[in-house]
C-alpha cells in the first residue's frame, strides 16, 4: 500500500486555519473599535452577533418579536443546510480559540487524544433544548451559553481588562528603566483606545473563560463537542447536507488515526458511523490519513445519515426540567419591586422586556466611555446575571454619549440619537445629608453641582446651617436635587469627594422606562420612548 498524505486536504486545512484566524481577527477588531473614536455614531460593530442563529431563534422566542437585523442569521442556516457545520469549523471565533488551544495542548503533550466510546455529545443538545424551551416561556438564558456572547463577555470584562492592567505594569517598568519616551508612546496609545479596566466579577468571568480553555486538556474542542448550543442547533440543520465523508476501503489500513484525531468526535471511521451533525469540516481526518483514503466528495443528492443519539426519555426530561426551572428563576424580589441599584443604561427597555432581549454579551460594557456599565450579579434576579447595570461609584453616564444604545445587538437597549438620549432619565440622585460635607461637616464643597450636566442644573445650592461638634453653627452652600431636572446620570456620585460611600448617590426610582418605579406623580411626563416609537 502506497503511503501518502493528501496534499489537497493539507491545503484545505491551512486555508481553514487562515479563515479561522481571519474571522477571529475580525471579531476582535470589531470588539477593539467599540469605544469612542471621535464620532458620535459608531456604525454596526455588533454585526457579528446578527449571524448567530441561536441568538436569533432564542431571542425571537423570548421577546415574541422578529428582528430585522437577524436576517443575517439566515445566511448561516442556509450555509449549514447545504454544506454542514462549516461555520463552526471555519468562522466561529470561539471555535478558533478552542481549536488553537487544543492544538497547543496536544503539542505540549498535555492532551493525548483517546478513543471515546461513551458519547457525551448529547449534552449540548440538552443545553439547547433547555435554552429554547426557557425562551418559549420568556426566560432568556441564551446569553449565558451562546458562544459569541460568551467570548465577547469574557474579553470585554475579563481578558482585556486583565491585559490593560498588565500593560500598565509594563509601562511602569519602562519608566523605572528610564525608557520614558517608549512609556509615553504606549501610555498615549492606551489612553486613546480607552480600555475599561474595572469590572465587578471580572475575576470570575475571566476564570470561566480560562476554565473553558483548560477543558481542552481533557478533550479537543471540549466546548464545541459537549457544550455549545449554537453548534447543536447547526447540527440539527446539517443532517441533510451534500458534503459527506467517504473512506476508500481499498486504501484504508484501519489505523483509526482519523477517528482518534477528530476534533469533534464525528467518528469518521467506520464510514457508516460518521456523524454528519458533529463534523465541522476541519479536514483533520482527511489530512492526517496516511494513505489518502479519506475524502469529502460533494453529492448532489443529500442523504440523511448517522447522528447523535438523543434518547427520547432525556429529551422529554430536559424539556420538563426547563419548564419546571422557569418559575424557580423568578422567585426573586426583582420582579416585585424595583431594585434601587438596578440602574439600566439609557434606552433600556422596561425590565421584563429588557431581560427577554438582553443576551449578556457585554457590547455595551465595552462601549461605555466611563466604565460605568457593569455585569449584574443579583440586582436583576438570577435570569438577569451579567446584564448591564450602571454603577455610578465606578463610572457615570456621559451626557452626550449614546454608544451603548448603538451597539446592542438585540435592541434590549433601544438605539437612541444624542438628542433623544439626553431626555432619558435613568434614575434619580439623592443627597445623604449625614455624610455630605457641607451638611455634616460645615465645609464648602459643591463638587456635585459643578459636575451636574443638565442646564439648568438638577443640583441646586441652598444655604444650610451645619451644627458643628463644638456647638457653633456654620452656613454653607449645600446641594439639593431638583427631581424634575435630574436624569440620574450619576456623575455626582462618581465625583463625590466622600469616596467610600458617596454622599450623593443615584437610585433607579423615576427612570423613564418604568411605569411603576415612580416617585412624584406630578413629575410624570409622557414616556419618551413610547413617543419616539411612533
Amino acid at each position: 500500500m502506497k503511503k501518502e498524505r493528501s496534499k489537497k486536504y493539507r491545503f484545505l486545512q491551512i486555508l481553514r486555519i487562515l479563515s479561522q484566524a481571519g474571522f477571529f481577527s475580525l471579531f476582535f477588531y470589531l470588539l477593539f473599535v467599540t469605544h469612542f473614536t471621535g464620532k458620535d455614531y459608531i456604525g454596526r460593530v455588533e454585526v457579528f452577533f446578527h449571524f448567530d442563529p441561536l441568538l436569533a431563534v432564542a431571542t425571537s422566542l423570548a421577546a415574541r418579536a422578529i428582528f430585522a437585523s437577524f436576517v443575517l442569521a439566515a445566511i448561516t442556516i442556509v450555509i449549514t443546510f447545504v454544506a454542514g457545520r462549516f461555520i463552526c469549523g471555519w468562522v466561529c471565533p470561539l471555535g478558533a480559540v478552542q481549536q488553537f488551544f487544543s492544538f497547543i495542548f496536544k503539542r505540549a503533550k498535555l492532551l493525548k487524544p483517546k478513543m471515546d466510546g461513551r458519547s457525551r455529545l448529547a449534552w449540548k443538545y440538552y443545553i439547547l433544548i433547555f435554552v429554547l424551551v426557557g425562551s418559549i416561556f420568556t426566560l432568556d438564558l441564551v446569553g449565558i451559553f451562546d458562544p459569541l456572547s460568551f467570548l465577547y463577555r469574557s474579553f470585554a470584562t475579563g481578558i482585556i481588562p486583565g491585559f490593560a492592567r498588565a500593560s500598565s505594569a509594563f509601562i511602569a517598568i519602562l519608566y523605572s528603566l528610564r525608557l520614558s519616551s517608549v512609556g509615553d508612546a504606549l501610555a498615549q496609545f492606551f489612553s486613546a483606545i480607552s480600555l475599561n479596566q474595572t469590572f465587578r466579577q471580572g475575576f470570575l468571568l475571566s476564570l470561566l473563560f480560562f476554565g473553558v480553555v483548560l477543558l481542552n486538556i481533557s478533550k479537543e474542542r471540549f466546548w464545541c463537542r459537549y457544550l455549545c448550543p449554537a453548534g447543536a442547533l447547526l447540527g440539527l440543520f446539517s443532517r441533510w447536507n451534500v458534503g459527506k465523508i467517504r473512506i476508500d476501503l481499498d486504501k484504508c489500513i484501519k489505523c483509526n488515526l482519523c477517528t482518534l484525531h477528530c476534533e469533534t468526535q464525528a467518528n469518521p471511521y467506520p464510514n457508516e458511523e460518521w456523524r454528519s451533525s458533529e463534523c465541522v469540516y476541519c479536514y483533520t481526518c482527511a489530512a492526517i490519513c496516511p494513505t489518502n483514503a479519506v475524502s469529502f466528495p460533494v453529492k448532489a443528492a443529500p442523504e440523511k445519515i448517522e447522528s447523535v443519539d438523543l434518547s427520547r426519555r432525556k429529551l422529554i426530561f430536559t424539556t420538563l426540567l426547563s419548564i419546571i426551572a422557569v418559575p424557580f428563576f423568578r422567585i426573586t424580589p426583582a420582579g416585585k419591586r424595583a431594585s434601587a441599584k438596578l440602574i439600566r443604561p439609557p434606552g433600556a427597555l422596561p425590565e421584563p422586556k429588557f431581560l427577554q432581549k438582553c443576551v449578556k454579551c457585554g457590547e455595551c460594557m465595552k462601549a461605555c466611555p466611563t466604565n460605568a456599565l457593569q455585569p449584574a450579579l443579583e440586582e436583576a434576579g438570577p435570569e438577569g446575571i451579567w446584564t448591564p447595570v450602571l454603577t455610578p461609584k465606578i463610572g457615570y453616564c456621559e451626557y452626550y454619549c449614546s454608544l451603548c444604545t448603538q451597539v446592542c445587538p438585540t435592541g434590549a437597549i433601544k438605539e437612541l440619537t444624542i438628542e433623544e438620549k439626553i431626555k432619558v432619565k435613568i434614575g434619580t440622585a439623592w443627597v445623604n445629608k449625614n455624610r455630605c460635607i457641607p451638611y455634616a461637616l460645615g465645609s464648602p464643597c459643591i463638587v456635585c453641582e459643578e459636575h451636574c450636566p443638565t442646564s439648568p442644573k438638577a443640583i441646586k445650592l441652598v444655604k444650610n446651617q451645619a451644627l458643628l461638634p463644638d456647638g457653633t453653627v456654620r452656613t454653607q452652600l449645600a446641594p439639593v436635587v431638583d427631581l424634575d431636572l435630574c436624569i440620574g446620570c450619576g456623575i455626582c456620585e462618581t465625583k463625590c469627594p466622600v469616596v467610600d460611600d458617596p454622599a450623593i448617590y443615584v437610585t433607579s426610582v423615576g427612570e423613564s422606562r418604568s411605569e411603576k418605579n415612580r416617585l412624584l406623580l406630578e413629575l410624570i411626563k409622557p414616556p419618551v420612548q413610547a413617543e419616539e416609537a411612533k
Partner: protein
Amino acid sequence: MNRRDFLKDLALGSVLLRFTPSLLTQAKNIPDLAMIQGDSPALITKEALAALGGMNRFVAKGDNVMIKPNIGWDRTPELAACTNPEVIKTLVELCFEAGAKEVTVMDNTTNQAQRCYARSGIADAAKAAGAKVPFVNPYRLKKMALRGEWLKEWEVFTEFVEADKLINVPIAKHHSLSRLTMSMKNWLGAIGGARNQLHQKLDEAMVDLAAFFKPTLTVLDAYRILVRNGPQGGRTSDVKLQKTIVAGVDYVAVDTLGTGFFGLKPEELPCLGIAQKRGLGQMNLEKLTIEKRTV
C-alpha cells in the same frame, strides 16, 4: 533636571518674572494688559499678543512650550465650557513663529478625556497648527512640594513644570464656589490626585497652584463667556458673546479685568484678594496700564 536645580530655576524665574515686565514697560511702553475686542477669535488673540510686544517676548528660539487650555468638559465650542479652539490654534502658531521647538497642548479633563479633546475642537485645531496634543499621562504624575500657604504638596503632571515656557489659556466662566473660573482656577487641570477635595478651600488652593505654576503668559479667552450654570453650561442661553481676549503676564490682573465681564467687582472674588496679599499680582486696575482696542 534634578529637584534642586529645578527649585533654583524656579526661584530665579520668579524674581525675573517679577521685575522684567515692569522694566520692559518703562523701556518700550508695553502695557501690563492687552484687552482686544473683535469678531475673530484668531485675530484678537494675535492683536493681544502684538500689543504685549509679540510672542518673541515670551517664547525664545528652541523653547518647549506648554499651553494649558481648559478642555475640562465634553462640550462643543458654542457652549463656552472649554477654551476657544481658534484661540489655542493661533497661540500655537505664534509660538512656532517665535521659534518654539515644540508646542504641547494638554489638560486633565473632567469628562472622558477622548470626548473632551475631540468635541471641544481643541485637539484638531492644535494638531492642525503642529502642536502635540497628548492626554495626561498618569505615569508622569508626581507628588511635588508646592510650598503653598494651604497646599504643601500635591500630585502634579510633570510636563507642566518641565516645559521651558508655560502659557495659561483659561476661558472665563461662572462657578458656584469661586464665583468665576479664570486663570487661577484653570490650574486644577494641571494636577491629578483627589482634585475634588480642593473645594474645601478652593480659593486658597487656586492661589497656591497659581503661585506654584508661575505661567510665562496668561491669555484669558472671553470670546464666549459662560454667565450661568458654570462651569459646564449646556445651553447657548447660558453663553454671552463677549468677543474679547485679555492677555498679560500678571494673571491676577488678567482675572481682575475678566471679573468685569460678569458685572462683578474684584472684591467679590476672594482668590484675587488672597493673591494680591501674597504679592502675586495687582488687582487694582488703576495701577496698571491697559491697552484696550477693538479690531
